[in-house]
C-alpha cells in the first residue's frame, strides 16, 4: 500500500513540478506571477483531447502536436498581453495576465461546455504493473519517467546552451544582461515557449491520470504548482522540481496517514506555503535577493 501511495505522491508531485517550472522561469525573468499559466496547462490537455478524441490520430502524434501548439499559444500570449506592458507598473501586467487567464478559460467553456469530458487514454497508460505484491498503475510510472527525462533535458538546456545562459543572466539582472547584448525579446519568448510546453506536457499527463478534462481543472492545480514554486525557491528551476515532488508527496502521505482529516487535503499546500514564507522565505533552493537603494 505504501508503495502505491509513494508512486501516487511522486506522480502528483512530478506534474506540480512541470507546471511550477513555468511559473518559476517567468517569475525569475519578468517578476510576474503568470496567472494565465495554469490555463495554458488546461489548454494543452484540451488540444490533446481534440486531436485524440475528435480528429482521431495516433496518440503520440496528437500529444506532440498539442505540446507544440500550446507552446505557440503561450508565446502569443506574451506577445499580445505582456510585451506592450513591459514598462508599465507590474500590477497592470498582472491584471493583463488575469484577463488572458479568463479568456482562455472561457473560450474552453464556450467550445466544450463547463462539464468534464472523459479523456480516451491509450492502452499503455491504462495498465497495472505488478512487482511482487506491489501494484502500481502504469500511468504513474510514465508520469514519473516523463518528468525525469524532461527535467534533465531542461537542465541541460539551461546550463549548457547559449540560450539557457541568456535566460539565467536575465533572471539575475535584467538590465545588465540587456546591456551585455542579450536579445531580450527572443529570450523572453523562448522562456514562454519552454514554460508553456512543459505545462502542456503536465496537462496531458494529468488528463491521462484521471482520465478526464474540464475547463476548471487548472484552478487548484495551478495554485498548488505555484505554491510548489515558492516552496522550492521562486526563480530556481531545480527548486521548483524538488518543491513540486515534495509537495505532491506530502499531500498524498497526509491523506494516507490521516484519513480522518482528508477534508483538509487542499489546505496542506497553503499551510506549507505560509510556514515556508515565515521561516525560509527564499524557499529551499532560492537565493536571497538584495534590496538595492
Amino acid at each position: 500500500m505504501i508503495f502505491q501511495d509513494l508512486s501516487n505522491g511522486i506522480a502528483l508531485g512530478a506534474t506540480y513540478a512541470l507546471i511550477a517550472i513555468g511559473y518559476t522561469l517567468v517569475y525569475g525573468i519578468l517578476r510576474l506571477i503568470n496567472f494565465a499559466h495554469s490555463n495554458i496547462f488546461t489548454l494543452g490537455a484540451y488540444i490533446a483531447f481534440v486531436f485524440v478524441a475528435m480528429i482521431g490520430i495516433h496518440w503520440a502524434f496528437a500529444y506532440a502536436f498539442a505540446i507544440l501548439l500550446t507552446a505557440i499559444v503561450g508565446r502569443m500570449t506574451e506577445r499580445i498581453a505582456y510585451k506592450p506592458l513591459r514598462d508599465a507598473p507590474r500590477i497592470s501586467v498582472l491584471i493583463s495576465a488575469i484577463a488572458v487567464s479568463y479568456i482562455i478559460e472561457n473560450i474552453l467553456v464556450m467550445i466544450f461546455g463547463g462539464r468534464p469530458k472523459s479523456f480516451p487514454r491509450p492502452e499503455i497508460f491504462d495498465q497495472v504493473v505488478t512487482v511482487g505484491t506491489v501494484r502500481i498503475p502504469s500511468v504513474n510510472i510514465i508520469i514519473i519517467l516523463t518528468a525525469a527525462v524532461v527535467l534533465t533535458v531542461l537542465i541541460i538546456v539551461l546550463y549548457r546552451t547559449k540560450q539557457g545562459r541568456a535566460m539565467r543572466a536575465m533572471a539575475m539582472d535584467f538590465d545588465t544582461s540587456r546591456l551585455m547584448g542579450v536579445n531580450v525579446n527572443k529570450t523572453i519568448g523562448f522562456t514562454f515557449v519552454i514554460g508553456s510546453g512543459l505545462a502542456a506536457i503536465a496537462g496531458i499527463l494529468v488528463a491521462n491520470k484521471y482520465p478526464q478534462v474540464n475547463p476548471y481543472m487548472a484552478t487548484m492545480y495551478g495554485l498548488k504548482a505555484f505554491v510548489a514554486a515558492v516552496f522550492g525557491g521562486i526563480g530556481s528551476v531545480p527548486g521548483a522540481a524538488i518543491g513540486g515532488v515534495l509537495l505532491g508527496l506530502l499531500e498524498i502521505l497526509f491523506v494516507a496517514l490521516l484519513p480522518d482529516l482528508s477534508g483538509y487535503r487542499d489546505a496542506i499546500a497553503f499551510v506549507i506555503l505560509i510556514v515556508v514564507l515565515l521561516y525560509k522565505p527564499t524557499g529551499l533552493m532560492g537565493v536571497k535577493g538584495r534590496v538595492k537603494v
Partner: protein
Amino acid sequence: MKILSEQKQILNDKESLNKIIILLILVAIAVLAYVSENLIGDYPRRLVMLFAINVMLAIGLNIIFGFAGMFSLGHYGFMTIGAYVAVILSLSPEQRMSNFYVTKMVPWLENVQIDPFVGILIGGFVAAFFAILIGIPILKSLGDDYLGIATLGFAEIIRVVITNLADITNGPLGIKGLPKFINVYWVFGFAIVAVIFAIRLGKVSSGRALKAIRENEIAAEASGIGLLYHKVLALAIGSFFAGVGGALLGYWTATIDPKMFTQVQNFTFLTIIVTGGKGNITGTVIMSFIITIGMEVLRFVEEPMNIFGLQYSGIPGTRMLTFSVLLLIIILKFQRGIFKHEFSPRLFYTRPKFFNKIRWGNKK
C-alpha cells in the same frame, strides 16, 4: 495688505461654495437612495445595492493596494470571514433549525443571537483581527509580492476550514434563507462612511505615510515612518471593510457558502482599482459603477436572440469572455488607470478650458 485680505475673502467664498456643493451632492445621494428604495423595481434596487457594496469592498482593497502599495490577493478570504461571523452570530433559532439539520451546531454557539448590525461590525473586526495576525509576521520579514501570495494561501485555507468545520459553519451546504433586512439606506450608509473615511485617510498623517511607503519604501523608512505599523494598519483597515462588505453581500444574496467568494471577486476589485487609478477614490467609485452595471448588461450576450434571421441560442462563457477581452483592451490602452485626478467641487465652477492647468485634489 488690502490685496491679501481680498484674496482671503475669495478663498473663503470658494470654501463655502465647496461646502455647499458637497452638501448638495450628499442631498442628491440621499434622494437617489430614497428613489431606489421606494420608487424602482426589485431588480434595479438590488443592482444599486450591489454597486454600493462593491464601492465599499473596492475602497477597502484600495487602502491596502492603492494607498500603501501592498498587494493582497486574499481579499476574498477576509470577505468570507466577515460574512460567516456576521451571519452565524445573528442567526435566529428558526434559521438554526432549518439549516443545521445534517450536523448539529456546537453547544456554545447554540444560543447566541445578536443584532445583525452589531454582527456585521463584529464580522469586520474579526476579519481585521485575522489580517493583523497574518500581516505582522509576513510583513515583518518579507516584501510585497510575498504578502499577496501569503494572503492568497490564507484565503484558500479559510475556505477549506469553513468547508470542514460543519458544526460551526454548516460545512459545504452553507447557510440559506437569511433575512432580507438590509436596504438601500444601509448599504449607502456603509459606502459613504467608507468613502469619507478613505478621503480623510488621504489627508491625515498616517495616510500620507502610507502613500510615502508606496512611492519609496526605503526613503519613507529613512524619514522616520514606521513601516510595519503603517502597513499592518492599512491591511487591517482594508480587511475590516472587506469583512463588513462580505457580510453585506451575504445578506444581499440571502445565502452564504464556502464557495461564494473566490478569486474572481478579488480580480474584479483589483480591476476596479487599477483601471480607476491607484489610490484614486473618484476612480474607484466610478469604476465600481461601470463594472457592476457592465457585468449585468453583459448578461445579454448569453441570452437567446435573433440576429437578422440567424438564431443564436446563447453560449455560456460568452459574458466572461467579453468582460475579459474588454479588460485586456483597457489595461493595454490605459496602463496607469483611466482616472488621473480626484473629484473636486471646483469641477462645477471652473471653466473647462482651464481643466489642464488647475490642480485637482492631490495630484500625483
